[in-house]
């Protein structure tokens, strides 16, 4: 039985909401049960955004992930907020381009990936979220990089082919960086 509860958090505009939808869509395409739930409303305005994603072989019970297996932290304030929630033995993926503090937990696995820097190398920092998703795929195997790549055109319906290609490159580089 497979279950992955994920929280993704960062500044509004870093693409954490769409990264979550993409993960859920990828899980669905791979035949898993999935759910996605955003933090919505007033707290979004000018502040941080986060979402919950569940990918499971079994039925998904609660869509709000209170004890995540994996947390992806895209900015500094998110580290303090979400590090304590990770399950013991769980995974914390940190965007080391923007997060300068060090995590303090010793009972979890920490993977630091310079998402903004890698994204910049690929072409634009706007796809730092894809680097982070690649890192998640590489570190957990809960979904594959190919699976996420297949989900891309379903979620970003109006994206140009060259943009999609850049996203795929970012995914692959993220996965490589996490291994």
């Amino acid at each position: 039985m497979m279950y992955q509860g994920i929280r993704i958090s960062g500044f509004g505009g870093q693409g954490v909401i769409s990264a979550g939808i993409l993960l859920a869509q990828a899980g669905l395409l791979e035949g898993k049960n999935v759910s996605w739930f955003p933090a919505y409303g007033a707290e979004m305005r000018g502040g941080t955004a986060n979402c919950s994603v569940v990918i499971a072989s079994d039925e998904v019970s609660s869509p709000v992930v209170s004890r995540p297996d994996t947390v992806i932290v895209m900015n500094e304030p998110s580290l303090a907020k979400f590090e304590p929630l990770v399950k013991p033995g769980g995974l914390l993926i940190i965007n080391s381009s923007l997060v300068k503090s060090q995590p303090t937990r010793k009972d979890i696995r920490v993977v630091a990936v310079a998402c903004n820097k890698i994204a910049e190398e690929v072409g634009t920092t706007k796809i730092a979220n894809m680097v982070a998703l690649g890192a998640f795929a590489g570190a957990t195997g809960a979904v594959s990089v190919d699976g996420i790549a297949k989900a891309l055109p379903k979620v970003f319906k109006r994206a140009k082919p060259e943009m999609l290609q850049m996203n795929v490159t970012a995914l692959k580089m993220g996965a490589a960086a996490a291994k």
Partner: protein
Amino acid sequence: MQQVNKWPSGLVNKPLRYCPGCGHGIVHRIVGECLEELGIRERTVGIAPVGCSVFADEYFNCDMIQGPHGRGPAIATGIKRSKPECIVFSYQGDGDLASIGMAETVHSAARSENITVIFINNAIYGMTGGQMAPTTLIGQQASTCPRGRTVQANGYPIRVCELLAQLEGARYLERTSTHTAAHVIKAKKAIRQAFQNQIDGKGFSLVEVLSICPTNWGLTPLQSLKFVTEKMMPMYPLGVFRTPDAAAGAATEGGAA
């Protein structure tokens, strides 16, 4: 070297939670300065609406009450009639004042309640995420008119000052804007006048402020300033529409005709 400006005592000293470029901050500062300069802060009661400026109760440094959507002028009536010595103002957006609260707006003006209404017109619903407002322009896109507002499906935008100018009880009506520093200074003069009218017992005063909403317009703040001059002002000309001393005045700037 002297400090030229400072945080007004009429505003709580804390960061504003509005989006980057949002016009609420400018008008909040103006109102806060008026409360200080007119020496009325400690006898003022403000009414926060439903919408983005629901947070106004956190920011204005006077007694505040937050009420149901659109009912600000009715609540103001209740407060003013119970405590006539108090200065009462209602701070409302376009959805709150001109859509769900239109009846309260019209009837408080008709009764010439001695209150001050600050009306922020940004032609969109902000808090709920960019739905069409009663002041949304023809052709303007919104999340409930994604192909642009049409007369056929959505009717015409409402010009609040012109509408209220028909009412004898509406004693002071002015439309201002905040898209340049000079207009901000004019807007402050109008808002100050609206409070002064209440102090002098002259009856219903309303100041409409054209304001930008970059987030829900889908524009940068700088592009939004252009939207005000090119799109909003032709529809919503600036000027004084009524004063306590004279009947209807004429628009002075921006009119399409």
